[in-house]
């Protein structure tokens, strides 16, 4: 069942062009939004009927030899993510049709985003680490296509490549971690690993495993210092930002950490890394959000901050913290997805996303305003939104922790209020200003999704003690690795936490009143600029390109002899070096005895070779080649190979004739190479010659027993009906080789014919 659900998006993707022929733009979006919506309904039924005690993985064999199965597991965590992916997906699919309009680009968009949705579902439902990795990489690739969607712009292509490289590098890290886990546990099955975590926890590879897995999670979820790709990825069309860069893909890292938390929790390296990196990201993201004026950038930096908070909460590890993580994650998906889409709707209708010139949209865009305001309330943590529940829990958790943590959370909370006002209140209530386009409400595709998602945030908040608590209870147990009792409530009376909530709201409003000053904040401070991860990324990329260029122009320099020298020098150095290092000269069989006729054949060959090497006339050189060929034929005769000799004689004669026909009119050789290059070439050539000589001598050290010789000798007559064994091999035992050989000759003949007949146009 899960297999089917996950592959539906992949199955539908190829048919999008066909559907797109009948229905364009808005209509296409309405049809395709049915895909995530129906999946959402099916996940919802599963979620309602979920019995945590009786979850069994769904396993289909795929590559049994390396332990990769199509194994899926639908527990509370998977299903919660599945609901977010398909729920926000429905809104985004509906929105994108109206937002992007008609045309071939929209069709491409839906193909990419369907593949992305399938991959994302694959990640959250996989019960096999390698399968998870495959889907993980697939999200990286599809997000590359989506970020670079406006591929005519340099900034889009740059951002797409950056996201791909950073998350791709993290993917490699994850793969290495997965392989290490497999080498320790002998399985890729997540269920099996979680069932018996002691194998990993007690292994000597624990530290590298944790570091590599976190490398994957932190790049994907844009934790400091890998955070820089996320704000740049805002080059993508707004529906992509809403979907990938707030609700789903960037949460894949959080998901991975949550999924594997039962295995590693309690190990200091794991919890501390999560808290340090998550906490840093939370504060840095919030700080960088202060000066943003672009709606999408505001949302992107606050997303960073939230991702950091989620990672930090997982690292904190208490039941309370994990519950908070799940509530906060759900709340964030609902309000941030909504705010991104309302930002897209505002951009679509006014032509700008700059908060400084937006205002007065309440009456012009009432539905968008409703969704935006409700979502902003949730983001700011106002009662009775789900965001309020999340924020209360967050403050309560942080109060029990380190003071640094508490102040970090408080700072991020204040900025969250400030950013919520900017993104969800300011555009509707601020005084109206001149915008590039005259604002108007979009049709229902641009509002239906946001209104629903924002309302859902309200419903979940109001029903905190029932609906939300039930959901969270199912989702949090797999993260904690045990059953966790969840009791949530909207109202906790007048206590410290409520007081803090009110305080942050006032402080956030205070920041809003001095926003003009905040916009002037520098992005980085002085010497920090040189340490900025994005700068380091650029430097590393430039270095890579520079090295590639230098290496290419060094090796691929267009001179044949340089290639040949490189090849032979490498062979000499590596193979020859190894060979001579292990060569035992005393073992070699040196038998200098020879007969007169053998000597004659040898002298003929050597004479021909030397004449060819030094001749300054082509004709002489060709003659010398002929002489050598005849000498080789002589050797063949002497050592029982009459067939070879016969062939060699005729072929040698033929090639000499051909050569002479082709070159007899040409002038003498010019003296092309200088003395130095001749000496260099001679050294390389003779080293290779010496190497070959010693190879032959070394081969003779070992006894030779050829089973093939015996086989062919005894089978030639009975099996091949021939007495000339060489012939039988060629035309019978290895007839296919001979057919290939004939084909090579045929192709050469066709080539020669073509070349001879070639008439060059225009002389």
């Amino acid at each position, binding site marked *: 069942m899960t297999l089917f659900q996950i592959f539906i998006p992949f199955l539908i993707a190829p048919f999008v062009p066909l559907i797109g022929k009948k229905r364009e733009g808005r209509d296409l979006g309405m049809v395709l939004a049915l895909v995530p919506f129906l999946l959402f309904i099916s996940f919802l039924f599963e979620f309602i009927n979920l019995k945590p005690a009786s979850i069994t993985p769904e396993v289909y064999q795929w590559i049994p030899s390396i332990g990769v199965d199509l194994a899926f597991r639908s527990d509370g965590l998977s299903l919660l993510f599945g609901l977010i992916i398909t729920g926000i997906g429905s809104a985004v699919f509906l929105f994108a049709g109206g937002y992007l309009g008609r045309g071939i680009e929209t069709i491409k968009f839906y193909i990419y985003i369907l593949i992305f949705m399938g991959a994302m579902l694959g990640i959250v439902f996989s019960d096999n680490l390698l399968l998870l990795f495959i889907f993980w990489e697939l999200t990286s690739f599809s997000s590359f296509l989506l970020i670079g969607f406006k591929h005519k712009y340099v900034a889009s292509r740059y951002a797409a490549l950056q996201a791909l490289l950073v998350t791709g590098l993290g993917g490699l890290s994850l793969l290495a971690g997965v392989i290490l886990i497999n080498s320790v546990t002998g399985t890729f099955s997540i269920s099996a690993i979680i069932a018996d975590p002691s194998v990993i926890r007690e292994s000597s590879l624990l530290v590298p495993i944790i570091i590599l897995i976190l490398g994957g999670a932190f790049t994907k979820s844009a934790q400091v210092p890998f955070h820089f790709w996320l704000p740049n990825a805002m080059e993508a069309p707004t529906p992509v930002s809403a979907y990938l860069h707030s609700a789903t893909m960037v949460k894949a890292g959080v998901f991975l950490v949550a999924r594997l938390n039962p295995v590693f929790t309690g190990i200091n390296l794991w919890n501390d890394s999560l808290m340090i990196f998550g906490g840093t990201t939370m504060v840095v993201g919030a700080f960088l959000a202060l000066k943003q004026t672009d709606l999408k950038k505001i949302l992107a930096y606050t997303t960073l901050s939230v991702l950091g908070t989620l990672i930090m909460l997982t690292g904190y590890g208490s039941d309370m913290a994990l519950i908070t993580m799940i509530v906060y994650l759900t709340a964030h998906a609902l309000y941030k997805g909504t705010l991104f889409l309302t930002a897209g709707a505002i951009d679509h209708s006014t032509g700008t996303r700059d908060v400084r010139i937006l205002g007065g949209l309440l009456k012009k865009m009432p539905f968008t305003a409703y969704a935006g305001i409700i979502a902003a309330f949730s983001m700011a943590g106002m009662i009775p939104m789900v965001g309020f529940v999340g924020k209360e829990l967050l403050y309560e958790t942080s109060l029990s922790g380190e003071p640094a943590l508490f102040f970090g959370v408080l700072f991020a909370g204040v900025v969250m209020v400030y950013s919520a006002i900017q993104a969800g209140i300011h555009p509707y209530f601020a005084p109206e200003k001149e915008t590039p386009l005259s604002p108007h409400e979009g049709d229902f595709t641009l509002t239906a999704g946001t209104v629903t998602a924002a309302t859902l945030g309200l419903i979940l908040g109001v029903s905190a003690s029932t609906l939300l608590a039930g959901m969270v209870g199912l989702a949090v147990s797999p993260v904690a690795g045990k059953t966790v009792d969840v009791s949530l409530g909207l109202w906790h009376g007048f206590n410290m936490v409520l007081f803090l909530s009110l305080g942050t709201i006032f402080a956030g409003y205070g920041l809003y009143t001095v926003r003009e000053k905040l916009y002037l904040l520098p992005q980085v401070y002085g010497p920090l600029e040189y340490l900025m991860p994005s700068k380091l990324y650029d430097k590393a990329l430039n270095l890579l390109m520079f090295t590639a260029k230098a290496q290419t122009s060094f090796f691929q320099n267009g001179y*044949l002899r340089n290639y040949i020298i490189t090849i032979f020098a490498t062979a000499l150095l590596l193979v020859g070096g190894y060979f001579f290092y292990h060569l035992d000269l005393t073992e070699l069989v040196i038998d200098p005895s020879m*007969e007169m006729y053998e000597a004659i054949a040898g002298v003929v060959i050597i004479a021909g070779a030397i004449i060819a090497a030094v001749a300054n006339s082509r004709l002489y050189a060709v003659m010398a080649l002929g002489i050598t060929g005849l000498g080789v034929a002589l050797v063949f005769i002497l050592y029982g190979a009459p067939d070879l000799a016969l062939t*060699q004689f005729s072929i040698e004669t033929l090639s000499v004739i051909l050569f002479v026909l082709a070159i007899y009119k040409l002038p003498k050789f010019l003296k092309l190479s200088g003395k130095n290059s001749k000496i260099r*070439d001679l050294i390389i050539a*003779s080293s290779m010659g010496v190497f070959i000589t010693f190879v*032959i001598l070394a081969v003779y050290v070992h006894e*030779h027993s*050829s089973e093939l010789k015996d086989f062919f000798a005894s089978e030639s007559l009975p099996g091949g009906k021939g007495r000339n064994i060489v012939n039988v091999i060629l035309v019978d035992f290895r007839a296919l080789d001979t057919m290939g050989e004939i084909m090579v000759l045929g192709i050469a003949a066709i080539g020669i014919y073509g070349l*001879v007949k070639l008439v060059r146009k225009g002389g």
Partner: protein
Amino acid sequence: MILFLALITGILTTVGIFLLLRRSLVKVILGLAFLGHAANLLIFTIGRITKGKAAFVPEGLQSPFEPFADPLPQALILTAIVIGFGVQAFLIVLFKQNYKSLKSDDLDDMNTTDML
């Protein structure tokens, strides 16, 4: 004789590579031919050589009696000789056509795809 054959193969390799590294295209083709001879002799020699007796099944017998030459390297070399010839013939004609249009057999004039 093994030493002698090994030396011959080494010298043929040397000449082959030396010619392969020249700038004249004709010499490069010759170099390939010499390298081909060297390779054939290498296979022939390391397959063990047997003086005189070819791999024939004598009349009246079902299989030859030792000593006789190993037929397998011979079969491989036979294929190599013929294919080597095919390649060489093609190269010669290619060189001829190339010379017609470039009026040069200097490889350094041929390291660009653009017309000079």
